């Protein structure tokens, strides 16, 4: 148990947790009892049913989605989790090979190590619309809190590196060449801990369960498994069969007419087409990890 530096309540530490959240006053603090800066949260602006309706509309834009998806896909369950991120506002001068670049950037660092390698790792947040953290709100929304195990010092280092990368990319885009930027003098480096509500939902289609993940504040779809329509799979299987048959026929033709190069290249290329058709026929779902806004 660790005492909250603001209200004095005893707060239980979760395994691995390095930044604790007081469930009484919402203060975020380290194990040594230091406050980590403003603690904000994104609000839940979409119900799970609403997000499922939006997801179905979004999924229609994915080419492989079955045509009866809208009517046949049924909602199964949804978990709401508030994931922690460090959001920094960084401004200052950055040294480049050509001189000094003055820039202001906003960077997001996941404060939960289990987000690494998941679609949530690259989430970029804006501080716009974020309000002070309320544990009561999390409970009322039926959500749970993911433990923050990336401390502020580690996040600070990652934030400077991320800011340098952002400025490097910005300059690279503008100058059309590599222009590595290194932070020289940072006038502003403000850190905030932001808990972001994320839905992880299960739905059913054709007797199978699929998953999608969406931002509950702005409805961005962050990850989606979408079934592939059965008739496409059947057509792909027919295409595969025809391609392999043609490969065998062309091989025989090449040998019969003494065309060795033809007998080698054409059957191989046709077998390649057959393999691709077979791959399409075997895929029962497509996985999309792109943001809604980019579709």
């Amino acid at each position, binding site marked *: 148990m660790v005492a909250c530096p603001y209200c004095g309540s005893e707060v239980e530490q979760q395994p691995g947790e390095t930044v604790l959240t*007081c469930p009484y006053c919402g203060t975020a603090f380290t194990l040594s009892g230091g406050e980590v800066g403003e603690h904000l949260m994104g609000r839940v602006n979409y119900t799970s049913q609403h997000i499922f309706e939006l997801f179905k*509309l979004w999924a229609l834009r994915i080419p492989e989605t079955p045509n009866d998806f809208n009517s046949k896909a049924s909602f199964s369950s949804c978990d709401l989790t508030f994931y922690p991120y460090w959001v920094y506002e960084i401004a200052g001068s950055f040294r480049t090979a050509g001189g000094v670049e003055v820039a202001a950037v906003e960077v997001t660092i996941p404060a939960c190590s289990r987000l690494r390698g998941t679609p949530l790792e690259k989430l970029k947040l804006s501080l716009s619309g974020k309000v002070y953290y309320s544990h009561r709100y999390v409970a009322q929304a039926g959500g749970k809190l993911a433990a923050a195990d990336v401390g502020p010092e580690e996040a600070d280092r990652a934030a400077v590196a991320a800011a340098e990368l952002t400025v490097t990319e910005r300059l690279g885009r*503008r*100058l059309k060449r590599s222009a590595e930027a290194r932070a020289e003098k940072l006038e502003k480096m403000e850190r905030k801990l932001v808990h972001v509500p994320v839905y992880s939902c299960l739905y059913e289609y054709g007797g199978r369960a699929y998953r999608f993940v969406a931002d509950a504040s702005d409805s961005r779809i962050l990850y989606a498994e979408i079934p592939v329509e059965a008739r496409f799979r059947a057509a792909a299987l027919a295409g595969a069969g025809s391609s392999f048959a043609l490969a065998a026929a062309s091989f025989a033709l090449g040998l019969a007419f003494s065309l060795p*190069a033809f007998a080698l290249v054409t059957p191989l*290329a046709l077998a390649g087409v057959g393999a691709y058709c077979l791959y399409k026929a075997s895929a029962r779902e497509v996985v999309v990890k792109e943001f*809604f806004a980019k579709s």
Partner: protein
Amino acid sequence: MPEARAFVAETTSDGRLVYLSAVARPAQPGLEQALTDLLHELAHRSYSELHGDRVRFDALQALKSMGFAVEDVEVAVSYRCPQCGASIQLNPEAVIYVCPYCGWVGDVRGGKVSVRVWPAGQRELVEGLVRGLGGEPVSIELRYVPFWVFEASVEADYSATVVYRRARPAGGYGRQPYETRYVIERVRVSGRVRFRATRAVPARLHTEVFGGEELRMWVERKWGFQQPPTLEAGAAKPIAPSMLAPELSGEVAAEVATDMLEDDAAEEARSDARRRAPGYVEEVRLEFFSPKVSIERRELVFAPYWFFTYRRGSGLYSGSAVGSEVSPLRVELPLSNAERAARLAGSWLAAAGSGLVIEAALRWQVDPLMMLLAAGLGLLATAKLASSAFAPAKVG
């Protein structure tokens, strides 16, 4: 358990017009007045702080210090329309809204904002568009999508190194008289570029639009020849539920527009440097670049955007359209079975062709490089045609 309630109209420390309400349990003499006074005090905090646990904790502590035996306090906040006084619940992201009760348009601080709206076309036109695609409409939804439009003048000083190739006739003793040689040379140029531009920036944090980039470009084009009329309160009220609330302030959007225009200026500077080189330019390297963007006009506009789904045969497809004339932005079109079969057959033919090309090249001893190139192109065509055969819809 009986409750004490309080309700006040206030302005937060960050200038937002709000209603604050509080409920404290259990009710006791004098608690409602104390709660009302407390809400006036709490309003000195920011809008963001009023949502947090800390404000509730502080309120509870304050009431206890006044001698009230209070077990729990709830504090709630909503926006207050400065014209009709309606209580309005908005997402915290919203920075500008249209009051659905009186049609007032303004920011969350109570400042009136002038917005312009292009009129939407009739629903029948969307239905006509769908029928023109050979389908039957399933759902049609109208949304007014907000954009900040900026008119700006841009100026940038630059210096660049231009690497170019120049033809140098070579002749004279021991050489062919008309021989031409190419030499690579460098020249350092500097100059200033100036231009005026219009940029549209979506005023939503994440625009949930099918064909979002096409819509942005439509706004920029349309602004050039037909600026929309200013929205009056009477006209705003009926369309308010369809208007997406802007989530990006004009200042933040101006930063985005400035960034885009600085990129454009860098491109313009490169083109300028390219024009000044006396030969075929191979590379332009900007050494110094100092842009200055002056925003001369800023307007908030709403574009009428239709999203529709339609059925054709057994397939369900989606599409979007914009404006009074309902111009299609992005539409999914079915790909017929005959087209699919043709694409797959095409891939088979390309595979057969590749084999025959290599066979012929080997027999007639064609340059191996040419042979590899021809075979490679044939195999690439095979792969492309095979993959396109399984695309379930065309997007146009």
